[in-house]
């Protein structure tokens, strides 16, 4: 069993200048280790859509690796994304799925089918490669090779299933931060600061 903190640490060690699109509990732990906040986006205001945003970024900037830190509950809510990603086949997309079998931030209720194997589902949809890890040493050793292989790759990580109600990045404050993060990322990727204000937060 892997902890969120350990998984985020080893992913970050191989991250280089990849864009990181995170969601839910993963965002909390990723923010504790990331050294590139201008390349991070925490999708807090649209549950399940982190992988779809990551796909768009990967297609729009095909030279830069894009990692997505998704979760089982979120992926189940947007399961068609596996087929959409496989269909477009972006070589620079690395789709991590933190599988704990529960909805952490709402108190630990089980997801509808806790035994789904997301790596097998991704392979069946047509991802280039899929992996499943349940111990941190194996994940740590595999990470450099994963991020140097052609995507789309799905990396399922079996994590400890504990409720994570404290400090989870899903608040009004984080909703307001999302437009700022996206503008900072666009500026970093395009070199232009041309996205003005719009919407309720900015």
């Amino acid at each position, binding site marked *: 069993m892997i902890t969120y903190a350990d998984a985020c640490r080893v992913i970050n060690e191989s991250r280089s200048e990849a864009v990181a*699109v995170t969601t839910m509990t993963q965002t909390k732990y990723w923010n504790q280790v990331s050294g590139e906040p201008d390349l991070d*986006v925490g*999708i807090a*205001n*649209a*549950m399940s*859509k982190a992988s*779809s*945003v*990551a*796909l*768009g*970024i*990967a*297609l*729009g*900037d095909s030279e830069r690796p894009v990692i997505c830190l998704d979760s089982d509950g979120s992926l189940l809510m*947007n399961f*068609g*994304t596996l*087929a*959409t990603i496989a*269909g*477009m086949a972006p070589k620079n997309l690395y789709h991590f799925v933190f599988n704990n079998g529960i909805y952490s931030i709402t108190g630990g209720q089980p997801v509808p089918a806790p035994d789904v194997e997301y790596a097998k589902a991704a392979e069946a949809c047509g991802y280039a490669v899929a992996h499943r890890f349940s111990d941190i040493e194996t994940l740590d050793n595999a990470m450099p090779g994963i991020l140097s292989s052609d995507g789309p790759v799905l990396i399922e990580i079996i994590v400890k299933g504990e409720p994570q109600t404290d400090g989870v990045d899903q608040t009004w404050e984080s*909703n307001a931060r*999302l*437009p700022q993060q*996206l503008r900072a*990322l*666009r500026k970093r*990727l*395009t070199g*232009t600061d041309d*996205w*003005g*204000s*719009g*919407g*309720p*937060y*900015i």
Partner: protein
Amino acid sequence: MINGVLHPKNVVAQLVQQGVSHYVTLPDSETAHMYEALMAEPSITIVPVAREGEAIPVAAGLFVAGQNPVISIQNAGLYEAGDALRGLALGIGLPLVMFIGYRGHNRKGDTPDSAATFLEPYLHMWRVDYFVVESNDDLDRVPLAFERAAKTNQPVAVAIGTEYAKAKTLEEVGGSR
């Protein structure tokens, strides 16, 4: 009477004029012929999605990476995509033109299809500006939609109020290339 049946190649020409890079879509009856027309346009990449709710998030990612996407989904799919519209278009101030197939629209104001009767109230509810395009004569509303989206940093809808003509009938309907 509507003059000049709407032809997909004319809409594609508008997209090219606007510098559109990606067409994120789940095809529907109203816009199905757009797909075929876009296959012949090398400057625009088609991104098929499995569910309409994915379209806005994918477009948001493309825009963040410096691209100029549009989406095309049916009105029924727009309802399915409501949370994405809320969080990742309206919520972030995304300048996105959304082509919406206006299924059930018949210009008589009386349709048995609730997909049609709810569309304009739904757009009003979200405070999304929109333009209805029913014929080639309405095509000047397409650049207005792009202009409005860019000016307001908000999504703007183009409701396709009739089925496109099939490509093979272009000359028959008097469309222009």
